[in-house]
């Protein structure tokens, strides 16, 4: 039947999209590498991309790697801080999100639909609005401090003066919905009779959870973790809105080097930082994909 369509029809209608993605996705990737390995303009001293790989130079790279690796290097602190923030935020997201997803997977009927809808709302509330809502609440004279003062539970604090805890909680607030849904999907797929079987065979509920439910939801945990880690590593706006320069993350540096400090070798260094970030993130993604493939093969056997 397919022969009835003119030959080359399918490639032809795919072409605009494919060309667009090549021009504005593949080429930009190459431009990052070309800029990171580029040279400096002889007159202005600014970064110029080198499109021919034969002339690539490692200067910007070695500068960035030196700044990352050497003790007291200029990128080291920001880099370690980013990793610490992301690790803590992901850990908290899991600790909070797993029970919520578990609860959601056990609901039935109307209650479940209502819960699902309320769960989905944050997905479509613009991210910056959700973080901005906290800026209001956490002001010195904001509602949080007012409530604290009224209850006497804790002294009013200046939450926004560069506390890591505020930024980490902001990251958790911003990204945890994206973790809960894949977790929910994984937990929901577990056949309840497996858990009942474990209980009938004498496993304690805790043991049944640890030996049956938790391993069966491992793929959901992995998927959700990767899904929230990808954007979190590039997130600089949360730290900017809820913290100060003290909370700068790797995205802050990239944004600064690329778009603000355009003079001198800054752009090349910014591009090298992007590559470091991309490598870090893609190693996580590859780990996830490999483990998913292995799990799928295991299930098929």
């Amino acid at each position: 039947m397919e022969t009835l369509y003119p030959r080359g029809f399918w490639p032809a209608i795919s072409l605009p999209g494919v060309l667009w993605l090549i021009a504005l996705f593949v080429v930009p990737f190459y431009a990052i590498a070309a800029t990171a390995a580029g040279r400096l303009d002889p007159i202005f001293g600014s970064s110029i991309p080198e499109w021919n790989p034969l002339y690539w130079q490692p200067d910007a790279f070695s500068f960035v790697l030196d700044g990352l690796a050497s003790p007291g290097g200029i990128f080291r602190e920001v880099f370690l801080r980013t990793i610490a923030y992301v690790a803590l935020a992901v850990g908290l997201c899991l600790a909070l999100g797993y029970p919520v997803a578990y609860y959601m997977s056990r609901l039935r009927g109307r209650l479940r639909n209502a819960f699902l809808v309320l769960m989905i709302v944050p997905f479509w509330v613009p991210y910056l609005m959700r973080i901005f809502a906290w800026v209001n609440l956490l002001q010195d004279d904001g509602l949080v401090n007012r409530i604290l003062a009224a209850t006497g539970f804790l002294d009013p604090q200046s939450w926004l003066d560069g506390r890591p805890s505020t930024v980490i909680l902001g990251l958790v607030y911003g990204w945890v919905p994206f973790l809960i849904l894949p977790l929910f999907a994984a937990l929901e797929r577990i056949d309840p009779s497996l858990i009942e079987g474990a209980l009938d065979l004498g496993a304690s509920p805790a043991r049944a959870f640890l030996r049956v439910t938790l391993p069966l939801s491992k793929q959901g945990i992995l998927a959700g973790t990767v899904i929230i880690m990808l954007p979190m590593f590039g997130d600089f706006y949360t730290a900017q809105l809820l913290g100060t320069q003290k909370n700068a993350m790797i995205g802050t540096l990239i944004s600064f080097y690329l778009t603000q400090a355009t003079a001198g070798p800054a752009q090349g260094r910014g591009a090298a930082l992007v590559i470091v970030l991309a490598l870090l993130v893609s190693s996580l993604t590859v780990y996830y994909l490999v483990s998913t493939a292995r799990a799928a093969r295991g299930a098929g056997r």
Partner: protein
Amino acid sequence: MTELAATVPRPAARASRVRLWLANPWRRPRLLALLGWGFIAWSLVPVGIAILFSFNAGRSRSVWQGFSLRWYVQDPNLSVLHDPILAHAVLQSLKLASLTMLIATPMGVALSIGLARWRGPVSTASNFLMLLPLVTPEIVLASGLFLVFAHLYVPGGTRLFGRRAQLLGHVTWSIPYVVVVMRGRLFGIGKEYEEAAMDLGAPPMEAMRRVLLPMLAPAIFAAFMIVFALSIDDFITSQFLSSGEGSITLPMLIYGTGRTGENPSLNAVATVMLVLSLSAIGLASVVLQRVARRRGTEEAAARELVRFEI
């Protein structure tokens, strides 16, 4: 367990209830329920408060001073309607989202149909290429786009930064989402309907126009809306590809003045952004749910809608 809960709590019953709960906290998930609904409250209340205070009559961000539309229309200098920067950001976001929607959706729909039917190594490679942006952190793509617009795509020496570069960036970012939205529907439909139409004598193009596209219409509509909402929400790409005041979008405005700005209109700006985003998604989900209800499940539609975001 239910009988126990219904009886008058004698001391013995109470003790055994505690023991039962300790033995299996998950059986009657009170604690979990508390956590679950507490979570929902925690995730929605801050946004609700921001919306509420956008209708505040006074300047305070934390004391309610009565209802008014002051920050939307009434205040002669600071309201969204009268502050030129705020009004411009609303317009800029709307224009950008509309244009992105009009360009990315047709291209993505064509790409999805082509890729679903075209077999061969090039098609496999294109499929892979199409999925890559979905697993790329946005900051990486935005950096790459910044660099090509700074050094490579400079037609006649003019930098495209500003609205043009933002539009190109948003379209790039949206195409894969369109394909993912369409793909679910395309695989559900299969080739049989077109083949039947062609067996009955319809020329191929006619079969596509009269059979396939109408069947895809709900998904196409949903794709339009989702691209619109994605563009309204987007921050990183808009920020990296901007140039000066003319290209400030709503999220950029909140990012730039959220911390320092004493201007209470920001709550109103954020609310406008929320309304734009949610109404697009609301429309998309109504259409998708109609289709899903015909097929039985409402929940599947909701979940499908969520998958796109991921």
